């Protein structure tokens, strides 16, 4: 604590950030909670509805489809981002030159806007005219797999999830790689002297050592995938039918197409509660790390 500080100076420095944060984040959370107990289309009078938005939500088949899809989206994203990130980061450890370059190349997609990515993948997945993916399958003799990835109800969810995963592999690679660099060389050397092979060094030394960062990264990837919206919304708008609808896209449509603000807010609250569970996880993880 600064010796010469005063109560006034604390307030002077704290009030602007709190105002900004309050207006943009805290107030909307509170408002969502309040709105979720009303029925309102934005034009006619608000009507108090009690828990009816929530009871409707829990019996709304479309909502549960969206929840299930979100889980699928989550799985694809997490496998690509965390699995891919861990794989590439481990591979990078064995590289002596060009690590920086590889890191930058991996991060490139993270710099591109989701609109550009959606457009790009729309073209990559296309069947007629054949885009790169279907052309590639043809080239390697897997013609039977060629299909319109975005209009086939069996593949569309994976197809809208993959770009999100692809996009952030580099991000998680960079983070996991930074953690791997902190593993003490002596530990690895000692294990090697005891005859451990590459795989054993990884599973017994490196991975356990980066455990805390791995968990933080997992929670981070988890919460980011929970808020996935742009790419599914832009690529398919939740379709065909409901096959790629996420909770976030469903909420968006409910709010701005059906202008059912109350029900959309109830879904917002659902999303916040999910996120708070994630915060709980973070705190749990950090506490374990401190012990």
């Amino acid at each position: 604590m600064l010796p010469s500080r005063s109560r006034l100076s604390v307030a002077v420095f704290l009030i602007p950030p709190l105002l900004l944060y309050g207006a943009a984040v805290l107030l909307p959370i509170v408002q969502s909670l309040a709105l979720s107990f009303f029925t309102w289309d934005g034009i006619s009078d608000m009507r108090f509805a009690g828990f009816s938005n929530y009871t409707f939500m829990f019996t709304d088949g479309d909502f549960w489809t969206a929840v299930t899809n979100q889980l699928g989206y989550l799985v694809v994203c997490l496998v690509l981002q965390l699995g891919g990130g861990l794989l590439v980061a481990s591979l990078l450890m064995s590289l002596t030159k060009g690590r920086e370059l590889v890191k930058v190349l991996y991060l490139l997609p993270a710099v591109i806007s989701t609109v550009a990515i959606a457009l790009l993948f729309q073209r990559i997945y296309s069947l007629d005219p054949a885009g790169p993916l279907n052309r590639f399958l043809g080239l390697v003799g897997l013609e039977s797999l060629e299909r319109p990835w975005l209009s086939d109800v069996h593949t569309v969810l994976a197809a809208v999830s993959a770009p999100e995963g692809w996009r952030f592999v580099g991000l998680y690679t960079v983070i996991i790689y930074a953690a791997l660099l902190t593993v003490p060389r002596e530990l690895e050397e000692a294990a090697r002297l005891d005859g451990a092979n590459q795989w054993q060094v990884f599973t017994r030394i490196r991975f356990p050592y980066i455990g805390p960062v791995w968990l933080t990264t997992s929670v981070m990837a988890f919460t980011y995938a929970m808020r996935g919206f742009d790419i599914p919304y832009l690529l398919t708008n939740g379709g065909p039918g409901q096959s790629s609808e996420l909770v976030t896209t469903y909420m968006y449509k409910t709010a701005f197409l059906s202008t059912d603000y109350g029900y959309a807010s109830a879904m917002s609250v659902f999303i916040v509660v999910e996120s708070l569970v994630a915060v709980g996880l973070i705190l749990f993880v950090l506490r374990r790390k401190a012990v």
Partner: protein
Amino acid sequence: MSLLTSARPAAGPTRDGRGPAPSRPAPRRPDVYRVLSRVLIAVLVVVQVYPLLWLFLSSVRTEQDFASASPFSLPNSFTLDNFARAFDHADLGRYILNSLIVTLGADALIVVCGLMGAYALQVLGFRFSNVVRGLFLLGIVVPVQIALVPLFIDYAKVGLLDTYPSMMIPLAGFGLPMSLYLFSSFFGYIPRETYEAASLDGAGPYRIFARITLPLSVNTIVTVVMVNSIFIWNDFVFANTFVLSEGLKTIPVGLQNYIGAMGKTDWTATFAGVCVTVTPLLLVFLVLNKAMIYGLESGATKG
């Protein structure tokens, strides 16, 4: 890059990945793992970079070449007509200008508020600082979509819909927690004695902020601006929800409309338009990638 690494206390060389090269004993046999891992890295680099390369190559192809040639072959033709058509059909200059205004505005808010908040929390300190920290932590985890409906209603009431601030405020608000966190952890490295000495010389909290904390933070500011700019420049959801008039559209929304209007037919011009809009950020990223990588790493690993 020395600009970015010079005053970065305790980050150490390993953070940058340029640390002491692993001093492994010389390989006893031709290292299969090493060869294998290199091949795998190369394959994965291709997977990561190829779609982008394809985008850029397609933007300089003629339409006939794009339609007929294999997407994996190099262009047989080179043309800049696509760019001309892209500029003709879409107001790309205006979109870029709008994105620039929103990005700079939101970045300025984030940097000013982030520095002030971190100074209050980390340097000045007060009784309920942990509660305030907890409040800000919430913003890292809560998805931005929850703000859409309430902000839309609030903006409609106070007449902020369809203005630059309607995008800047939520973008800055949701970017603030992570930035505040980065500034806080940086301030933690500034030695107590520096402040005590300044206090003894009669400097108050404002003077110390302006003369010591702020000048020392330049590198962290670059990092914070870099990391946030990427998200702000690419924001689709706020711009799409709060802005309706053509004159205020930012790149992502403008691009989306443009695609809706003509993308299905004129692919090469669409790709040219996309290239024009992704290039500025890509160039900045290539020049300042260390600042961004550092921010991303410390954001997650110091947690």
